[in-house]
């Protein structure tokens, strides 16, 4: 068995049956081995970046390891954005690249790049294989490492000659990454019981720990008012009466108000990032903080924790739930207050009753949320549409919402939707994108067509880079700079060129019919939705400002610009 064959053998051993890749010179031995392997489905994307982002989407939707493969040089460099995306959101991923033959490393050979060196900052770990006999142990370790503790991408760079070398038979090591035992929660429970206004704050760490069910049980049992980060959307479930939705820069007034007023913040699986907290000085000023996470490096990084607890979230949530089941919290007034705030300060968007009115992003997303099946997976891109989805689509599970949270990668949505569709061929998968993001990986329409994936594509087209335009309007005295996209191609014709049927809508009375048509269609379909160039995402907190200083539509441009000048 040579190195390439060994890699496939490791895939089989670990039940890795779907990989995303693009062939080229130095990875050809692996592609040669794939010819004889019927157990691994290789998905040929049209750009290596899309391979990595599709593997990312596969991992987010399935909870399994995403795998992507590319050749040396440009193949590897094209992967980088996708791998960085996975790194920032702690997505378990295995990256395999071919490298120039061992003897040519360091000679500026054709398609040689120092992959190991240039990717150090975007991986959980990485290897440059220098001996074929070490490959089995490296594969085992890499697969385990990518999925253990705080997950992340692990990259294996393999010289071509080692892919062709025979690998010595040897017993495989069993890497062990022991999760910490459940810590003592006595202090946490005491703090919870003594708080009058405790607030539950959860993020993407819940699904990374596969703790969705345990979290849901805890949220329901504790009946704590709850806010979520962008990646935590869906954690409490859409039927939880105390779910105040997303906090932060584009969070709800209710969520930010609750953070502002709470006296205890119970942070679980979240890293308190700047888009969520706003200016740290003004964040949860009256609250003590309990921070629970799998990664101790997150403690005290930005906000000092009064109590930091590292451990397996499943075990911790189970113990907290048990303790609160036998003795519930007495926080009725606070619960009622939060529900009132949610009623008056939740995300609201009027459904325009006027048939001929132009479509607004929020109104469209609310209709989509009502019409799409409950277990639909929505993969977003980055920009205004991403925030409208976060605000107005009601998700009942965090794995239903695929979004590039940490890196904010335009072009994520389409390949992520492809990955999600491979994770579950029978699931409704919708890519909601903007005209800017769509063009970043539009070549993947060919992948959708090739594999006849029934992915639905919704392009909210405002003919500009809307989020940048909005911030230029609000914070740069309306000085628009290089955001104009009014020379976009005809997206309907473009989809049809890939043999994907497409529709165009532009009026309110066309929304329902448009959504129902693409959902009912048995195959991929694109819905092009023309929206106003001037629509903004509300509310918004100016970058660097406190969440208390939210700007909404009634205090728009002039006020914000005055504040900027002042």
């Amino acid at each position, binding site marked *: 068995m040579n190195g390439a064959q060994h890699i496939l053998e490791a895939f089989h051993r670990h039940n890795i049956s779907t990989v995303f890749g693009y062939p080229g010179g130095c990875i050809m031995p692996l592609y040669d081995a794939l010819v004889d392997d019927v157990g691994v489905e290789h998905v040929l994307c049209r750009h290596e970046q899309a391979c990595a982002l599709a593997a990312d989407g596969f991992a987010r939707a399935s909870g399994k390891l995403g795998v992507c493969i590319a050749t040396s040089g440009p193949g590897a460099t094209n992967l980088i954005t996708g791998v960085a995306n996975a790194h920032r959101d702690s997505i378990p991923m295995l990256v395999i690249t071919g490298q120039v033959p061992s003897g040519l490393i360091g000679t500026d050979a054709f398609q040689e790049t120092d992959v190991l060196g240039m990717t*150090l*900052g975007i991986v959980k770990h990485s290897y*440059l294989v220098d001996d074929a006999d070490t490959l089995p142990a490296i594969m085992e370790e890499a697969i385990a490492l990518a999925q253990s503790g705080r997950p992340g991408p692990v990259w294996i760079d393999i010289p071509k000659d080692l892919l062709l070398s025979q690998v010595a038979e040897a017993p495989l090591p069993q890497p062990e990454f022991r999760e910490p035992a459940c810590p003592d929660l006595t202090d946490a429970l005491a703090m919870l019981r003594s708080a009058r206004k405790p607030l539950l704050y959860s993020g993407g760490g819940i699904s990374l720990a596969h703790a969705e069910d345990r979290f849901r049980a805890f949220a329901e049992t504790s009946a704590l008012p709850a806010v979520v980060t962008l990646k935590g959307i869906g954690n409490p479930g859409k039927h939880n009466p105390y779910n105040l939705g997303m906090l932060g820069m584009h969070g709800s007034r209710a969520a930010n108000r609750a953070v502002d007023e709470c006296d205890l913040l119970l942070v679980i699986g979240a890293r308190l990032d700047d888009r969520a907290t706003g200016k740290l000085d003004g964040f949860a000023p009256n609250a003590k903080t309990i921070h629970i996470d799998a990664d101790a*490096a997150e403690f*005290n990084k930005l906000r000092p924790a009064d109590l930091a607890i590292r451990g397996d979230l499943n075990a911790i949530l189970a113990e907290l739930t048990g303790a609160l089941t036998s003795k519930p919290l007495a926080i009725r007034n606070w619960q009622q207050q939060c529900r009132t705030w949610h009623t008056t300060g939740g995300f609201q968007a009027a459904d325009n009753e006027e048939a001929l009115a132009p479509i607004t992003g929020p109104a469209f997303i609310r209709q989509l949320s009502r019409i799409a099946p409950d277990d639909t997976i929505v993969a977003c891109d980055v920009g205004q549409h991403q925030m409208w989805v976060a605000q107005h689509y009601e998700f009942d599970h965090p794995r239903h919402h695929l979004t590039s949270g940490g890196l904010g990668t335009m072009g994520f949505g389409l390949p992520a939707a492809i990955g999600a569709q491979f994770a579950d061929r029978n699931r409704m998968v919708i890519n909601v994108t903007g005209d800017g993001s769509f063009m970043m990986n539009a070549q993947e329409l060919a992948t959708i067509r090739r594999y006849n994936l029934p992915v639905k594509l919704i392009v909210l087209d405002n003919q500009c880079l809307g989020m940048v335009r909005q911030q230029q309007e609000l914070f740069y005295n309306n000085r628009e700079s290089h955001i104009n996209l009014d020379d976009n191609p005809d997206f309907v014709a473009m989809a049809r060129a890939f043999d994907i049927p497409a529709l165009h809508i532009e009026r309110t009375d066309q929304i329902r019919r448009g959504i129902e048509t693409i959902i009912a269609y048995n195959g991929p379909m694109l819905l092009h939705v023309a929206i106003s160039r001037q629509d903004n995402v509300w509310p918004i907190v100016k970058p660097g400002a406190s969440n208390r200083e939210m700007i909404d539509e009634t205090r728009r441009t002039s006020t914000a610009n005055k504040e900027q000048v002042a």
Partner: protein
Amino acid sequence: MTPQTEIPTPRYTLNCRMSQEAAALERLCQVVRIRGFRIARMAVETAGEHLDIALTLEGTRPIAMLQSQLEKLHTVAEVALGAPAVARSRSA
């Protein structure tokens, strides 16, 4: 010219033991840099399959944050914070 104020920059010593792998030192140095510290001195010794690295670092962020990030590196076996070093001044 405006007179410059002397601001003391905290200095730390950090001892690291890590396994010898490709790019081990680069990985360590990359984390030190991105987490806000400057390497003032670095001594490396091979100890069997390990590398023992003694770092003198300067930076204004909490050293515990860097320590916890270094401990996460797969190749790092141990990170020990030495006694605080004498603060060095730099111009503002």
